[in-house]
């Protein structure tokens, strides 16, 4: 950095939501120490209050787009949208997870604290203005998540999943860091804005450091690919999804996807937009590999969590199709996709949590047999989730797919689009199979489903399911919001 570090109080004002959340986390950490296990509900409500308070702080924030701490931290509309949805999904996770964790003796303060720390990390990550902030946010996010996966320490499956996640995640972080070091070497700066200027320069007339930059880009893309969980860097996803407690899987499947989009956007567009010609092709290859591997392997799964894991891989392939467009419209489409996926996936995992509350771990697709006989309403909610994941209009998921297909077609990537739609048909098969099990098969236990008495959970799940249809019909405001964030009308 050329300018000396200076501290400006206004910088803290820009970071007020993060500061507030950090303060709240520290307070909850202290309060939780003095609570008896029976009083854990207090931690739950305090954590929810902290999340909601932070959302309010972001929503009322009228500061114009600016950077803080010498460009380390970016305060703009994109960060606002992403942070609100990161927090929103975390809040949803808290409501969905509480009863599930209670039933399994896992309702401990650490769950909330680790989730909140991870959320804080995600918020820093999506607002990052320099490579250091990217790494800082990412590590806070992922280290907390490793611990979350292992929260059920007596389960061998969970511990194994956590180990795998940690080893592969650390490897990915190493790759990312290595890539960053090359970029630093080529451009002489950690600031993404300055990198952007330098990278454009390097890809223009002056060819110096071209190779180094390209190498750095490859490693960055590898790191990003790991965090998204796109093929061929997807190996950890199925095991972690299956092994982690469903409440944690929900967190990984929703909050982390939005954060991963933020990271990819900051690094690729914010830092290396001048090399779009290079990374577009790379992302196209990753997208196609994910679409093919995710969708085809998902067919063979009998475990619903594992099936959703492979489905995630394919959905991240779709998301990359928005990114590879390399224009604000494309980024808005990808952001919309991340949000739509998070909202839809939370219904799917919420359905698993609901059934898991009735006394058994409802992980196999067959556990959903005859759900329509046992409880038509929640069968409908799951139907909406599956149809939305498959991309059937008029559900939310369809319009997200529409936008990324449009973005990829606009970028001239017809072959990616063709692969994507063929894979969407393959994907439709395994989502339909879940609907088939719920609606066409006869339940072994025909009694009505014993629903947990946890009304916030049931109401939020119903609302979340209905949102898939409502947002499918009226998605105008949401896409307009995304467009505005990227400066489009």
């Amino acid at each position, binding site marked *: 950095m050329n300018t000396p570090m200076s501290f400006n109080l206004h910088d803290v004002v820009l970071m007020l939501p993060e500061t507030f959340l950090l303060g709240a986390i520290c307070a909850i950490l202290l309060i939780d120490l003095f609570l008896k296990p029976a009083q854990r509900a207090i931690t739950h409500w305090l954590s929810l209050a902290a999340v909601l308070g932070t959302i309010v702080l972001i929503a009322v924030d009228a500061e114009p787009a600016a950077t803080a701490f010498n460009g380390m931290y970016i305060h703009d509309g994109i960060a606002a949208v992403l942070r609100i949805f990161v927090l929103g999904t975390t809040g949803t996770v808290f409501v969905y997870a509480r009863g599930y964790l209670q039933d399994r003796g896992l309702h401990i303060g650490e769950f909330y604290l680790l989730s909140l720390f991870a959320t804080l990390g995600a918020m820093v990550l999506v607002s990052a203005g320099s490579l250091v902030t990217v790494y800082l946010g990412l590590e806070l996010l992922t280290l907390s998540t490793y611990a979350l996966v292992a929260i059920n320490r007596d389960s061998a499956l969970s511990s194994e999943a956590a180990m795998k996640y940690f080893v592969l995640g650390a490897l990915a972080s190493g790759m990312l860091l290595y890539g960053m070091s090359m970029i630093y070497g080529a451009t002489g700066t950690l600031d993404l804005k300055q990198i952007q200027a330098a990278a454009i320069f390097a890809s223009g007339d002056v060819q110096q450091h071209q190779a180094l930059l390209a190498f750095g880009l490859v490693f960055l893309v590898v790191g990003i690919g790991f965090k998204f969980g796109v093929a061929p860097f997807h190996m950890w996803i199925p095991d972690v999804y299956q092994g982690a407690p469903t409440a944690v899987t929900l967190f990984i499947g929703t909050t982390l996807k939005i954060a991963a989009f933020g990271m990819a956007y900051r690094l690729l567009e914010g830092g290396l937009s001048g090399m779009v010609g290079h990374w577009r092709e790379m992302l196209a290859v990753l997208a196609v590999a994910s679409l093919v591997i995710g969708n085809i392997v998902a067919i063979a799964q009998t475990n619903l969590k594992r099936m959703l894991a492979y489905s995630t891989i394919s959905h991240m392939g779709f998301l990359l199709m928005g990114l590879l467009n390399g224009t604000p419209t494309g980024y808005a489409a990808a952001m919309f996709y991340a949000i739509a996926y998070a909202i839809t996936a939370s219904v799917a995992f919420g359905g698993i949590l609901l059934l898991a509350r009735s006394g058994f771990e409802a992980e196999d697709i067959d556990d959903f047999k005859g759900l329509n006989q046992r409880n038509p309403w929640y069968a409908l909610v799951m139907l909406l989730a599956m149809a939305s994941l498959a991309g059937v209009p008029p559900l939310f998921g369809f319009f997200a797919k529409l936008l990324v297909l449009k973005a990829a077609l606009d970028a001239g990537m017809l072959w990616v689009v063709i692969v994507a739609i063929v894979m969407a048909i393959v994907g439709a098969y395994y989502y*339909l199979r879940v609907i088939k099990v719920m609606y066409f098969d006869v339940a072994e236990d025909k009694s009505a489903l014993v629903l947990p008495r946890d009304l916030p959970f049931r109401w939020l799940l119903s609302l979340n399911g209905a949102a898939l249809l409502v947002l499918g019909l009226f998605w*105008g405001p949401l896409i307009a919001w995304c467009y505005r964030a990227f400066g489009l009308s």
Partner: protein
Amino acid sequence: MNLTHMLSLVIWLPIVGGALVSLTGAGRANTARWLALGIAILTFVVSIPLYTGYDAASGTMQFIESYIWIAAIAANYHLGADGISIALILLTTFTTVLVILGAWDSVHDKVNQYLAAFLILEGLMIGVFAAMDALLFYVFFEGMLIPMFIIIGIWGGPRRVYATLKFFLYTFFGSIFMLVALIYLYLHANSWEMADMAKLPLSASVQAWLFFAFLAGFAIKVPMWPVHTWLPDAHVEAPTGGSVILAAIMLKIGGYGFIRFSLPIVPDASQEYAWVVIAMSLIAVIYIGFVALVQEDMKKLIAYSSVAHMGFVTLGLFISLALVRHGGNNQAAYLGVSGAMVQMISHGFISGAMFASVGVIYDRMHTRMIKDYGGVVNTMPWFAAFWVLFSMANCGLPGTSGFVGEFMVILASFQMNPWVSAAAAFTLIIGAAYTLWLVKRVIFGEVANDHVAHLTDINPRETLMLSAFAAAVLLFGVWPAPLTHLMDASIKQIVDHLLVVKAI
């Protein structure tokens, strides 16, 4: 009378009504039945002003509603209907009433969900016929899949899961290519309006790609040979109501799609590749006719006969294209499109009636195998009378609606090529063969077994349902004027548009 929001009303009334019906709960089947019937009749009544209030002389889109739906991508909630749409909308509202009537005693499991699915399906199908925005069209077009998937899957026959998955995946496969074509058109026209897409100049090679994308979507829906194989499976396994809706309306959506998308948006490619469609149609008419002849399952036989009859629709549409483009023979082209449209409406009534009739005897015998029947006329004389009437219409006997459309198409095709016309006319023989043979084996002859001997004739509810179908079949057979008058001007506009060369 203010008819501005007529189309929205006809679309959303059954959808909201369907949601209400599903809320009645599984225990109160009769409440659900009466409520669903009430909503279906109300929808039919509400759709009548579309016919009376439509200015048929102008033939333009009327009852226009346009609101911004998604400003960011310029998608609009834009509805409108011309003569073609209105004819199909009325067919839909009419058939749905009869389907709900037909399901009265034959469905006992989860009645509320069954009826709700049909009402929601009705609203979505009307939406397809009324949408003027391509994205809205696609949403309705695909939205139909889920209710139909569930109808076949829950209330269907033994192999219902296979059939319904096949139905869904086939249709999804075709339509998603159409979606890519629509996105491409949107990116170039900057609008989802079908009218704007029709104005967009497109190079010949682009048109060819788009043409095949549309063909994938609509040929599977019609269905045309060789992508028809989902239809017999779906028909055989679907409950009676599902078969009726499938045959009477859903197949028509494919034909409607050709009229609204392929012909106006990619006319040059449609002309260039018309021979593909004409060949496929002729194969459907002749080959599928022979396939129908050897069926042992009544529903399968009628399903194959549907494929053959729908071949006439596609034949009529693309013959006329060739006529206009080659020789400027507008009059004959107009005859071809009219014939296709009349055939669509008429086939809607006839195939609906045939499947409803099969449902009537299936409810009594629980078998669809032709060999289990014989001599039904001895125990069910009234039913036999209806069955024979519908069969005559199915083979295109003059005086029934089946004759009108086929005759017009054959007449038009004669002006293109007498050989095509001869091949098409062959259907009159083969159609008569499989239909009359079916009648002979099921209705006439000695009483085949004890089950047939104990059959009871149709009850008043079934009589009402079959009479309504019979009335429509006869009315449009002897006096098709109301129908042709309704569609005349709209079809003229479509034919005139075919002259425009868009290639750049």
